[in-house]
């Protein structure tokens, strides 16, 4: 499909959900309501680490207005010695996360749940539940969790033959790093820390669940995957998938954090026990204490290069916090960190560390920003040491078609080089900085991207319009993008296409919205479905005209006779064929289901300008540009939205966002006042350099775009602060007290 002939692909069509969202019509999970509905609340642990000796719910059950009380005993038991994987999750851990079983593992860990006639009664009943604890010492930070005498969270986790908080490791090896470092003229090694950061979705977790006496269950919830909600609810409650209909509500942000469940199985059991629909809505404090975030980390990276800039070896060790149960994104950190570079010798090692924090959840390119922060910061210093422009150093070593990556694949045609060239040639990079404490930093990043299961149905309505049903919640513009593609393929107007997100009973299995996979995968099944619909339309026209279907062409939204019949019959529009559908064979429509492959990795390069107020330690971003290979920008406004959102979150991660724990092992900043995501006025215009190197393995050339834009951010900001101050700060966030202390220490040292 070439650009000039495209009528809809690449166009900034009106977003179908926009008016509803700005007028308040859009129905989010917390908007759902049912006759007879009651409210569910969760009792949470007051301790970061304790054995649950007993739970007495009798007083809560006796409180007037209470309809059901649930504990872990009401859910399916998953013994710790038998893995039950679902995607990247394991039901052993998921079950213990939604309601504590043997132990409470973090402050805020759910212990029991109550459903009552009002939220107030439910809260009162929670307070009446008596839990007897055997309080244990706790570990919050990685160093505390891996110390020799650390309190062990799980006796069944062993590392090197001993009980340990190291729950897993992952290793990638390419070539021989020792031989590589022996060739190096310059070696830089540094250690880094990053803090856990929350996804920061505005909509808190919410659901309404109604279970009938025969267990038929309807779930309205805000998630990144209605099929994930169904599958996990089935695992945890034992109700078969065929009896559950999970209905996706409009979603107020997820960023990965809504790829697991917290409330739905609990509300399901409460509804089953009470016989009433049950609604549960988390408040912000619950979200901050007990959901997400992504891992905090400590890492060490060593890179060796020759004087001409050739990188000869790269070595990285990445410790990631998993939270209280195993499963940190070490694959993202250890796998993506060196992926942008063609390095012959790589050794990358990841450790999954449990501690008494809330279990981590996916966050945009999980783990990758942590790996990139370390590698891209070290590269910045390598460039300085050999006197090379940092972008040119990256260009010299850039991965390209045929490069073998340490994590396994050999890259097909990718656009990393183009992101670097675009950055080098940009107005941004060429414009000199003017202020004393201004600085510029660059960094790159990689994310795997994903394909996977997707289903779609394309139906022609009786009045000649089109309804496309897919199975992935739209968190980044998939509905508008699929409408663009459908209109393009069928040659009809964008306004004729309506794209719906089906519930689990009305569309085929579709894996969750994650891995930057949705447009890649759903465009493939929609393309197959549309092709089949076109065949049907041609067949209907052929039948009306009494000619062979091979003599009909579909063009510009019309069936036209061709070959020997060319011009013999007036062309027929979609509307005309739809009107005659019943007479020509019945309803017109087609579905397709597939496990899609070919989602190739995505690359981005960021350029960041900062100015530091050296009296206050405040880092302000002056200018920021993301150069990213997006494959094909099906809907450029949404692509820009993804890039800008990623840039904003990366800047937040770099400068102010962090979980702060008090001495009691409790989160001390469980709200948006003291958990500081950037506000609008903190950011300049976030510029997008969209580069389109079509993915050769996709019909429209789509590559995932949603996650890569977060990956380079923290390193780009950190490298800019170095350029401004001449100080390399290796611990995030670069918050005012940290920056001021570093600047003052540096000034004192210079004076001595």
């Amino acid at each position: 499909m070439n650009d000039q002939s495209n009528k809809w692909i690449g166009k900034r069509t009106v977003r179908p959900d926009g008016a509803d969202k700005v007028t308040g019509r859009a129905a989010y999970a917390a908007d759902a309501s049912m006759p007879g509905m009651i409210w569910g609340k969760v009792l949470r642990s007051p301790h970061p680490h304790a054995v649950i000796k007993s739970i007495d719910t009798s007083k809560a059950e006796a409180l007037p207005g209470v309809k059901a009380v649930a504990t872990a005993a009401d859910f399916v038991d998953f013994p710790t010695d038998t893995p039950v994987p679902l995607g990247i999750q394991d039901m052993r851990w998921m079950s213990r996360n939604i309601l504590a079983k043997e132990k409470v593992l973090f402050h805020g860990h759910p212990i029991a749940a109550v459903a009552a006639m009002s939220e107030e009664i439910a809260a009162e009943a929670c307070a009446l539940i008596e839990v007897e604890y055997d309080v244990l010492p706790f570990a919050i930070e990685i160093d505390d969790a891996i110390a020799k005498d650390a309190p062990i969270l799980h006796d069944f986790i062993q590392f090197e033959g001993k009980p340990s908080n190291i729950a897993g490791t992952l290793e990638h090896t390419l070539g021989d790093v020792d031989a590589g470092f022996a060739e190096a003229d310059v070696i830089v090694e540094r250690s880094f820390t990053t803090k856990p950061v929350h996804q920061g979705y505005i909509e808190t977790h919410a659901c309404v669940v109604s279970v009938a006496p025969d267990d038929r269950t309807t779930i309205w919830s805000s998630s990144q995957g209605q099929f994930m909600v169904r599958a996990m609810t089935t695992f945890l409650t034992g109700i078969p998938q065929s009896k559950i209909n999970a209905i996706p509500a409009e979603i107020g942000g997820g960023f990965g954090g809504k790829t697991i469940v917290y409330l739905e199985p609990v509300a399901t059991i409460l509804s089953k026990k009470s016989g009433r629909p049950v609604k549960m809505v988390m408040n912000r404090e619950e979200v901050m204490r007990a959901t997400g975030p992504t891992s905090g980390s400590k890492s060490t990276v060593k890179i060796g290069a020759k004087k001409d800039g050739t990188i000869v070896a790269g070595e990285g060790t990445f410790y990631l916090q998993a939270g209280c149960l195993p499963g940190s994104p070490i694959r993202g950190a250890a796998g993506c960190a060196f992926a942008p570079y063609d390095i012959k010798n790589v050794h990358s090692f990841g450790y999954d560390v449990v501690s008494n924090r809330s279990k981590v959840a996916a966050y945009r390119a999980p783990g990758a920003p942590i790996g990139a922060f370390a590698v891209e910061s070290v590269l910045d210093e390598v460039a300085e040491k050999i006197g090379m422009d940092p972008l040119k150093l990256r260009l010299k070593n850039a991965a390209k078609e045929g490069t073998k990556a340490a994590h396994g694949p050999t890259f097909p045609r990718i656009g990393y080089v183009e992101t670097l060239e675009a950055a080098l040639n940009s107005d941004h990079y060429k414009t000199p900085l003017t202020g004393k404490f201004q600085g510029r930093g660059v960094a790159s990043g990689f994310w795997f991207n994903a394909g996977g299961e997707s289903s779609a149905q394309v139906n022609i309505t009786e009045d000649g319009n089109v309804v496309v049903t897919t199975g992935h919640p739209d968190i980044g513009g998939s509905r508008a993008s699929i409408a663009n593609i459908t209109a393009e393929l069928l040659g009809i107007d964008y306004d004729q296409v309506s794209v719906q997100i089906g519930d689990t009973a009305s569309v085929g299995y579709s894996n969750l919205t994650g891995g930057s996979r949705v447009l890649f995968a759903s465009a493939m099944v929609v393309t197959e479905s549309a092709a089949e619909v076109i065949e049907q339309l041609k067949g209907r026209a052929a039948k009306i005209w009494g000619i062979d279907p091979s003599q009909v062409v579909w063009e510009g939204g019309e069936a036209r006779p061709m070959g020997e019949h060319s011009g013999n019959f007036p062309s027929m529009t979609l509307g005309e064929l739809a009107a005659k559908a019943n007479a020509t064979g019945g309803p017109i429509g087609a579905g397709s289901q597939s496990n899609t492959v070919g989602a190739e990795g995505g690359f981005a390069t960021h350029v960041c300008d900062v100015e530091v107020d050296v009296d206050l330690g405040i880092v302000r971003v002056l200018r920021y540009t993301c150069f990213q290979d997006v494959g094909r920008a099906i809907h450029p406004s949404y692509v820009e939205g993804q890039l800008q959102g990623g840039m904003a979150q990366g800047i937040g991660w770099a400068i102010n966002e962090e979980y702060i724990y008090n001495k009691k092992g409790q989160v001390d900043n469980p709200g948006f006042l003291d958990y500081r995501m950037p506000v609008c006025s903190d950011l300049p215009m976030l510029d997008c350099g969209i580069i389109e190197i079509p993915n050769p393995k996709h019909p429209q050339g789509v590559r995932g775009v949603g996650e890569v834009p977060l990956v380079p951010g923290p390193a780009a900001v950190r490298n800019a602060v170095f350029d401004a101050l001449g100080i390399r700060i290796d611990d995030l966030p670069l918050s005012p007290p940290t920056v001021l202390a570093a600047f003052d220490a540096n000034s004192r040292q210079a004076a001595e």
Partner: protein
Amino acid sequence: MSDIRYLAPHTLDDAIAQYAAADGAARILAGGTDLLVQMRSGVLKPSTIVDVKKVPELMAVEETADGGFRIGAAVSGAALEEHAKFGKVWPGVLEGLNLIGSTQVQGRASMGGNLCNGSPAGDSVPALVAAGVVATIKGPNGTREMKVEDVPAGPGKTNLKPGEILVSFTFPARPKGSSDAYLRMIPRTEMDIAVVGVGVSLTLDAGTCTAARVGLGAVAPTVLLVADAAKALIGSKLDDAAIEAAAAACSAACNPIDDKRGTIEYRTKVAGVLLKRATAIAAERAGRA
């Protein structure tokens, strides 16, 4: 589940009677930007709420006979911003008040509420202290006056007696060459809470500082009046030495805590930095006044 009584008296006397009658279990509702948040988070569970926004004395903006202002304790930031004259005379007080919350919150947030919430980080308080404002308080035993800096007693506490309501703030008349400024340190650019806040009010006569007051917030249990900083400025031409001395006085006055919003070391240094910057702004404004 406990019910809450909501009262909205139309006169000051009714408000005082109702508030006093509730015997300590009532809370005054001005804008509610702190009270409602604290109730929703479960920190406060008052049995009675006395809404004072229908009481004329608490909602009035008046110019006094001597050329000063009397501002009702519940006047919102947005209302005061629209006043033709107040912000020209007290730009620092107004900018402090206008920093509280978002645009929406400005339609509700008041100086009286900000002061009585008792937070050492309240944004309108340092400039009120610097302005030498006097608070008028009325209770069952009559009316009394208090310097603004004497109202807070510690985090979340005031020196108001049971049943007393803060009615209004009286601002003194300003000699020519006077102005003020408020600056706060926040990690973000808005929607944040002061890590340090400094209000400076001063009068310049032919380049010499003839009067000055400095209020310092978020570095001690209450907002401080820093007399030593004012002393360093008064009589000077605001030269570097005088300003350095005033900044040092601010840092010396700090008695902060290490918390999630800032370290002791950080707050102590920043207090001096903000003093210098706020003084420069106030002086520039005074030169035009």
